[in-house]
């Protein structure tokens, strides 16, 4: 994700990339070269160079220490989701940034994907009437990461914390606070490089939501959405909407390789997200997604994990 964010900043004429650093022992020199910036051996060293903003894309368990270091250096913080691995860590990050007088932006990029933003706008506009039954899907094979950290449940929290938190945030954005959560999942098998979860949310405003997440589906990434209300239904059919499919002859009798689908956009959603955060900093404006939103999304994800682990219905208090 660091490379994606870096590439987005590189496109912004009013943003200068001061440098890149990483949590591992290897200095990210190649990434720095690709982005036309310099690398640093540590965050401390990079902070010495005086950036105004620090964008944190390291694995989740390092978010807090990076955020606190950046805040104490007077830097604004853009932080990948989930904000942290635990609620106290997330609260400490929010408090540290508030006390330091810097902004904290959680990178819930789904809000900047045009299909999800449009669906929300249509729902707000009454296109489906009163929302009733909402279903989302998000899935891929098991992700690769630094020292296989996704396979360490204590570090990553599995897909519930790392991936379908996107859907939790989008659902809360559209339908408000969650009243209760019930979930089943394979969180205890994350170390085997598999995870799958089925989460049911009851929203305080009435609708019932079902979130399906998988890190055990071969065949590439996909995400879908269906929102039913008392006057209609919106469907985002995921990869079925990809407008470009490339099929190359493999030179061996024309059987061809695997088709590669693409969904090109004029404005990359990651660029749109980071552009928005930079604009908010420049204008002192409130972002579309706040640190508090990031905290609440984390709360929903942790409730789902607690339900998976205890078999119980987990009640949330927001909006009670």
């Amino acid at each position, binding site marked *: 994700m660091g490379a994606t964010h870096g590439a987005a900043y590189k496109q912004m004429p009013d943003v200068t990339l001061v440098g890149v650093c990483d949590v591992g022992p290897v200095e990210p020199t190649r990434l720095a070269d690709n982005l036309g910036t310099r690398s640093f051996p540590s965050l401390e060293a990079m902070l010495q160079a005086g950036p105004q903003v620090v964008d944190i894309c390291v694995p989740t368990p390092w978010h807090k220490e990076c955020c606190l270091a950046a805040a104490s250096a007077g830097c604004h913080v853009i932080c990948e989701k989930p904000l942290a691995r635990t609620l106290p860590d997330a609260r400490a990050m929010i408090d540290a940034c508030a006390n330091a007088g810097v902004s904290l932006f959680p990178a819930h990029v789904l809000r900047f994907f045009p299909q999800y933003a449009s669906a929300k706008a249509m729902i707000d506009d009454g296109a489906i009437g009163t929302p009733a039954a909402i279903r989302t899907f998000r899935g891929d094979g098991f992700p690769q990461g630094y020292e296989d950290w996704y396979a360490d449940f204590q570090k990553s929290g599995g897909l519930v914390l790392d991936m379908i938190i996107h859907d939790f945030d989008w659902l809360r954005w559209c339908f408000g606070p969650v009243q209760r959560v019930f979930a089943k999942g394979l969180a205890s098998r994350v170390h085997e490089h*598999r995870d*799958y979860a*089925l989460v*049911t949310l009851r929203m305080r405003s009435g609708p*019932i939501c*079902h979130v399906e997440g*998988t890190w055990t589906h071969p065949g590439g990434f996909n995400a879908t959405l269906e929102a*039913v209300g008392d006057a209609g239904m919106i469907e985002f059919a995921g990869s079925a909407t990809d407008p470009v499919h490339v099929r190359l002859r493999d030179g061996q009798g024309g059987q061809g390789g695997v088709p590669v689908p693409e969904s090109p956009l004029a404005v990359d959603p990651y660029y749109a997200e980071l552009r928005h955060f930079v604009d908010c900093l420049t204008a002192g404006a409130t972002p579309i997604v706040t640190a508090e939103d990031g905290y609440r999304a984390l709360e929903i994800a942790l409730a789902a994990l607690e339900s998976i682990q205890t078999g119980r219905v987990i009640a949330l208090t927001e909006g009670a």
Partner: protein
Amino acid sequence: MVTVGMMSFAHMHAASYAACLKGLPNARLAAVADDDEARGREMADRFGANYYASYEALLGSGVDAVVICTENARHRQMTLLAAAAGKHVLCEKPLATNVVDAMAMVAACKQAGVQLMTAFPCRFHPAMQRVKALVDEGKIGRILAIRGTNRGRNPGGWFIELEKSGGGAVMDHTVHVTDLIRWLTGAEVSEVYAEIGNLINHGAFEDVGFLTLQLDNGVFATLDSSWSRPKAYPFWGDVTLEVVGEAGVISMNMFAQNLVLYSDKAGCVQWANWGSNMDLGLVRAFVDAIESGTPVPITGEDGLKAVEVVAAAYRSADKVAPVQLPMPS
């Protein structure tokens, strides 16, 4: 040759079952009875059967077996009548609207020495048969989880009169996929959680039902049984399964085999399904079992197990907590 009588055409599947019976070389649709005389006479005419003014008269007409397609709440009464007359029974789903009735039906048929089959046609759909074969071959290894849906439109009519239907979408649409999950896994549901709402029609019946099932072999599943297809949807609904195994995933969309009709006459888009007729497999299996005296492939107990899940779903929604099966009576 098996001689069959149709007890009511209240459920819309009855006409399809009757047509299937007509197409079988070893079945004869001989008799029709219906509380709605006009409907009964019309169907008797259409399918070349004799109309009887009462169910007792139909049962006395020498049929070997009956197909019961009354409103849900009357399945028990009809099945007990048929069993007492020594007739084998194919009963529309859900087998009953509560566990007590379903148990009484199973017991009555057992005592009378007649077979009771529950109408779960989805098992006979070629897409489902393929999924079952792939799972049984071990293609995706051990099953870990299943995500199912059986959504539809609100059917209206007696389906939303609770004293006849026994419930809304959860009563109507839970049992098919529950049965498919039991069939695929060979396991029983041990716990049910349900979030239910009357959020679309705002009536006295639920139209949204999101169930979570825990099976006794460790597999977990969710099942969307909602009447959540809008009137503008191009098809009546769906049956889908996502079967997640240790070695792979099988996705099934049972009614994906469609032509798409963009109709200026209808002013909407419609799907015209060209997939196979699953009802024929169901009716044939019933007739073949009765003719050969072998056990029916889907029993009254299978129907009862699915009814238990429905009852647990309603209790769970009331308690806002998961409910263990079997429930204390």
